[in-house]
């Protein structure tokens, strides 16, 4: 259907200068709130930080932006904390009259460029501002998940909380800088706070043994669970040939997933903004229709677009 939001056209918001990444929706009566992550211009060393903010779309016309948040929903973490250099991506869910957010918190390392762990924050004002539940992560590194826990997507199915996320397994040494390999995993919880990791990669790689996967976005349509996600080659991926594409898998039990990317039904587009890459899908149902928000070229440098599900999955 085309691009919904172009971050390069926004003014007056220092935190929203480049990129609009990892969209995630929260539905209101009159509008659809879309959380996304954006960045101020890079610092003098060329390094970025990421903030999460939101914009509101008219529920009856998803291409009409009603408002854009003035400020990010959460400040960056304090000195030395796991989320000192970024809050990205973010996934939200309503919970006991509040809005709960799970997010990737970024720190900078010396031998590798970064590490990520999953933080949690809550909003008491309908998702406009959030406060951390604590200064540390709610899910961090463990024996079988040694680094890069990121891309959380929180869901509630059958009385249980599910967190789909990615976990890093190794860093590859390439020409310019180390590149991580990461895969989709999940954990379950009774309260959304204490999580039990399954410690399994649930989506088999299709491109290569070191395929990187992200944005595991799951929904239930009444008969089975569907997951849209994105995947790419591990090295030399900043181009059309090896960059992100959107994949698809389905499951009857949330444990065993059958991958079939040809059913994703979306590829690179004809327009300039998504002609090389599509990634970070988020699927939501609204007023009887199913939509997907997704990123275009350079993982959302030029914003995100909207697609409509035309056929049954």
């Amino acid at each position, binding site marked *: 259907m085309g691009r919904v939001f172009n971050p390069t056209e926004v003014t007056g918001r220092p935190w929203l200068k480049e990129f609009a990444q990892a969209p995630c929706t929260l539905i209101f009566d009159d509008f659809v709130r879309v959380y996304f992550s954006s960045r101020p211009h890079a610092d003098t060393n060329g390094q970025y930080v990421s903030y999460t903010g939101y914009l509101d779309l008219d529920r009856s016309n998803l291409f009409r932006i009603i408002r854009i948040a003035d400020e990010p929903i959460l400040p960056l973490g304090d000195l030395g*904390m796991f989320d000192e250099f970024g809050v990205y991506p973010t996934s939200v869910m309503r919970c006991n009259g509040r809005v709960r957010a799970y997010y990737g918190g970024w720190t900078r390392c010396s031998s590798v460029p970064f590490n990520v762990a999953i933080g949690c924050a809550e909003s008491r004002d309908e998702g406009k501002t959030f406060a951390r539940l604590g200064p540390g992560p709610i899910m961090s590194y463990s024996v079988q998940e040694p680094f890069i826990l990121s891309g959380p997507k929180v869901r509630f199915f059958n009385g249980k909380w599910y967190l789909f996320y990615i976990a890093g397994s190794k860093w590859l040494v390439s020409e310019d800088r180390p590149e991580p390999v990461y895969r989709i995993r999940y954990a379950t919880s009774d309260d959304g706070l204490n999580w039990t990791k399954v410690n399994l990669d649930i989506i088999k790689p299709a491109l290569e043994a070191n395929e990187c996967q992200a944005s595991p976005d799951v929904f239930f349509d009444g008969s089975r669970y569907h997951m849209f996600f994105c995947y790419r080659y591990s090295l030399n991926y900043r181009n059309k040939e090896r960059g992100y594409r959107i994949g698809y898998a389905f499951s009857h039990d949330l444990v065993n997933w059958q991958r079939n990317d040809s059913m994703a039904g979306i590829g690179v587009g004809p327009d300039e903004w998504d002609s090389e890459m599509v990634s970070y899908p988020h699927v939501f149902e609204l007023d009887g229709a199913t939509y997907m928000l997704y990123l275009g070229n350079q993982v959302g440098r030029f914003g995100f677009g909207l697609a409509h599900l035309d056929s049954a999955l």
Partner: protein
Amino acid sequence: MKWKRLGLLFEPKKAKHFAGYEGFAQSPQVLQVDGLNRTYFSIRTKDVQGLFRSHVSYVDFDGSFSRVVGYAGKEVISLGELGTFDEHGIFPFSPCRVGDTVFAYTCGWSRRVSVSVETATGLAISHDQGESFERLGNGPIMANALHEPFLVGDSFVRHYSGNFHMWYIFGQRWISHPHTKVPERVYKIAYAKSKDGIQWTRLGQTILNDRLGVNECQALPSVVFWDDQYHMVFCYRDVFDFRTTRDKSYRLGYASSRDLLTWHRDDSQVESAFDDCQPGDWDYNMKCYPHFCVSGERLYLLYNGNDFGRQGFGAAMLDV
């Protein structure tokens, strides 16, 4: 408690076996093997950037720590892979017998950019009486958490009354030095419990009262059961200027408990060991990284001295 100081037990720069290292023998911790006191410590190399890395080795003493009877053939565990929590060093390293195996709780170091370091606790297992250890996996068994946001480490584990008990530290905040602006960390001793030594439940609070105020830094707890109660030795310091100023640097603290839950802090019980310490002594400016160990029905206190153990480690013996 009345102590008799035994002086330096081990000086890495005087041991030909460790000629390739830059010195330091930090955090001595004992595993008893066939009547020997196998004493692990962290010793340093310098990497290509000139930065230190800590590696784990050991020296074997006789039962009374009076004689060295052997050394580790090689480092007992490698450092972690690129980007993992223990890539830049393991210090300290804490052994604990579990059945026929030895569990070692490692404190893995990895360097950061805005602050100097992050740590987490790893687990490695030995099937050869502690000569070599294999990691459970590339990640830690205990890392930062919601209310313990960084610098989880210094884990020390003992099995008492059907449970594994862990004393460890976690960081509370980084604060910048008022003049140098260098970030320094505040960390405290805490406690966790486990049925298997692998999955831990944290108590979620500190267990010792502060003597130096809220920014007191507490490290390296070591616990022993002796004379009908539990004894803990640890070290503590001010948050700033501890590297250069004697009255701000590490000294030893002490606490006792009968139930492993409530601890009564009374640092005078170990301070008395240093009443006759003189300027120029190897342990005059600093006392740190202590370890309690019972051998031959005697209670020993191993520890490091000046400059965080650069010269080596020594011991004191309870005078009974």
